[in-house]
């Protein structure tokens, strides 16, 4: 009776120690890959809740003449801070994650709007022949990931300046928040949670661009835009 109990305790302790070891799996010396990989589009499940779909109007071209990395800190893209869950908690350890090329990451994320049916053109001048189109210069304002409890969380903000008919310029901020379970605090996990945040921000922008293509006015800015 005693022996199996010891084994169970041993297994639990081993798991605890193994988890403590992997809690620092982040590789500080290696920048995040900044490779954009969109999650598969949500599909409707039998008897499941309806899935909100986003489709651009047919023949809609999204012109993105300029895409820039305008983050105030372009060196880092996240951090892992360990704090105990107490009232007087302060950071016990901090590790920062270096960022790869966030300009290319943003460009690839914006080009992925083709999945919604846009003809997306990046870095090229606007064609006067295009009738159904939306034009915006886009800046990445924030892309940061961190650990929160058992999860990794990210916040991505895109700033889009739309050129409206008549020459007027309207600006909108699009926020995306990603979250996923944190298994080992690995660089690839931080990258995938950043991708989730970016995908949500891009989707917000795509919804407004679709409205412009349909000839509708740009939706009013939400609070915080």
């Amino acid at each position, binding site marked *: 009776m005693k022996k199996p109990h010891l084994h169970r305790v041993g297994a639990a302790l081993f798991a605890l120690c193994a988890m403590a070891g992997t809690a620092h799996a982040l590789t500080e010396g290696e920048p995040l890959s900044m490779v954009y990989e969109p999650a598969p589009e949500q599909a409707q499940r039998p008897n499941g809740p309806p899935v909100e779909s986003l489709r651009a109007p047919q023949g809609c071209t999204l012109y993105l003449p300029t895409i820039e990395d305008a983050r105030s800190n372009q060196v880092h893209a996240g951090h892992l801070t360990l704090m105990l869950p107490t009232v007087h908690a302060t*950071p016990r350890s901090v590790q920062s994650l270096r960022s790869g090329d966030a300009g290319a990451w943003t460009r690839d994320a914006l080009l992925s709007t083709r999945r919604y049916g846009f003809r997306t053109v990046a870095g090229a001048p606007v064609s006067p022949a295009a009738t159904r189109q939306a034009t915006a210069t886009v800046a990445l304002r924030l892309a940061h990931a961190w650990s929160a409890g*058992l999860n990794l969380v990210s916040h991505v903000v895109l700033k889009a300046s739309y050129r409206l008919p008549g020459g007027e310029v309207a600006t909108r901020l699009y926020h995306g928040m990603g979250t996923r379970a944190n298994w080992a605090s690995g660089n690839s996990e931080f990258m995938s949670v950043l991708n989730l945040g970016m995908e949500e921000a891009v989707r917000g922008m795509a919804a407004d661009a679709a409205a412009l293509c349909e000839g509708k006015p740009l939706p009013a800015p939400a609070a915080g835009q």
Partner: protein
Amino acid sequence: MLRFLLALAALSAALLLGACAPFHRPLAAAHRAGVREVEVRVVVAQESFMFSAQAPGVSAATGGGLIGALIDSSVQQSRQKEMSAEVGAIVGPLLDYDYRFEAGLALGELLNAPNAFPLKIASSQVLAGMPPKAEQDARIAATKTGPAYLVLLLQYALEPGLGAFTTRTTALLWQAGNSEPSYRSAIIFQTPIGGGTRAAVIRRLTANDGRVIQAVMRDSLKQTLHVLGMDMAGARSGAVRTARFNVNGAWVTLAGNSFDEQPGRVVFRDQDGAMYSVRSTAP
């Protein structure tokens, strides 16, 4: 096998005891006298105000374990999505206010004020990220012949419900080439900012080009450095004081021994030596 398990148990017990050991390590008079100069680095690793769905506590309700943790994680995921618009409404207007910039101004003020800090400051800098381990180790080793090295790991936050602005800082001092810090402390600054709706709070913070939020940010580091300086100088604990403190959106009353008198603020140590600078007019 048994020996292995016992060794593992001993190791875990040591780790657990280590985690429970008092965090506060006062600066001994001999160590203080040994510091001719100090280089100060304030590490602010975050880029904006960080919000995330609060842990729903399913894992605790189900008796813990991996399944509970996974349920927690998935519940948080859906709540995080719901929070996105709310976070955008808070963080969006505050994106242009840079804590590191304000911290740099506060550090500059400290350098220009004679005798504001008990140690002579050779240089100071606000860092946007933690230096990699190798660099940090080399920096600590260099204290053998060079100035001491004081690192402040600082995290700032708006409490849920926007009732208060809080900074939580760990201060670590290395000297004489020792890998163990000769001083270690926890410092918490909080000031209430609430009153009215979320939109009203954000408007108030960002009015006049963000004068209020910028002042609160500067004040947080000034207070943190002041409290740190008092503790390093060996300030003694006095009478017990209480203060209202916002934890995750709820106001609670904390008590501790006061060690500084400032108009409008309560400065005290709790039973574990963590130091607080809290506004005395909090709700």
